[in-house]
């Protein structure tokens, strides 16, 4: 499954953040997943510890935040909630809509353990 590929991409990105901020390790990682991103949160949650073994985020808590599906109607401009396979406007029923939320796969934030000297400098 491609959730392993996604977990590896996540680890690479968090690794970049750890290096950039000269941190010791990541303790908490927050990822925002929309249902339309094509990634199953449970599978990503299972793949992450396997892929993270031996890295500086091995013991990090992975927070997977579910994003709701919201669409904006191009006809009536309403912003309404939608479901995976019915992305139509809930106000007027038109299918000419744009996704506002629900297809994202974002690394939102990372909590880092830094050295005391670095923290006191902030």
């Amino acid at each position, binding site marked *: *499954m*491609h959730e392993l*590929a*996604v977990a590896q*991409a*996540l680890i*690479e*990105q968090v690794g*970049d*953040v750890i*290096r*950039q*901020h000269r*941190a010791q390790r990541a*303790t*908490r990682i927050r*990822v925002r997943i*929309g249902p*339309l*991103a*094509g*990634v199953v949160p449970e599978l990503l949650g299972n793949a992450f510890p396997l892929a993270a073994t031996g890295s500086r985020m091995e013991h990090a808590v992975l927070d997977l935040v579910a994003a709701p599906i919201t*669409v904006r109607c191009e006809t009536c401009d309403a912003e309404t909630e939608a479901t*995976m*396979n*019915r*992305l*139509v406007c809930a106000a007027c029923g038109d*299918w*000419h*809509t*744009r*996704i*506002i*939320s*629900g*297809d*994202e*796969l*974002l*690394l*939102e*934030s*990372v*909590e*880092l*353990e*830094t*050295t*005391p000297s670095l*923290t006191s400098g*902030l």
Partner: protein
Amino acid sequence: MCDTCGCNLTPGNRHLAFKPVAPGSTAVSVLKNLLAKNDDQATHNREHFDRRGILALNLMSSPGSGKTALLEATLAALKDEFTCAVIEGDLETENDALRIRALGVQAHQIVTGTACHLDAHLVHDALHRMNLDGVDILFIENVGNLVCPASFDLGQHLNVTLLSVTEGDDKPAKYPVMFRAADAMLLTKTDLLAVLDDFDPDKAEAHLRNLANPAPVMRLSARRALGMDAWLAWLRNELAAQRARVKHGQTRRPAIQPDGAQLHRATA
């Protein structure tokens, strides 16, 4: 802005991002697409295509929906008009590339082994092993799979999603991520419609519209040469559009790239 990791820090939100959570620790706000590295590679691949004026298409479907058969019929029909090339993605075997080469068309086979989708890095490796000089259209046949290929941008300009009439007309409702990514949906093997009375092409199209997807829907049979003209006309039209874009230094990303990511960033 933190250049190395690309996080969205500005002087305005810096105090939020670096809010200390506990002594000796820091919370960093990143707001970056998880597949950003793949997407960067895909952007680079697109530059390869645009520099040469090539139109690149990504063909996706379930296993056996008729991607290679469609390519065979298409390449034969276009052989005096355009130079085409093909990248084949399969879990195992060179069979599909052999079928294409039998028509005298350049084909590079990517054997993915266990990976059930192509990604931008695999396609880039293939590009550097091919001769792209004089190529007008590059077809990338993705691994037969209705799930993950939709999540990985390869650098193509357009996604073509095939649905054969043997699969059921509610596939777009069952695999919304895949069908939302289609720039064109092809209903294939229509010669079998006569014996399959439960596939309603209009219903398949209605399911696609429910995904807010305006993509054209074309019905065809590659084996019986039915409905091929509309598909070939669409290809010619898209190649002309690509050439016009290239002339103006523009490009096009497929529907696969959620423009939502941009929106979320702006509103985050």
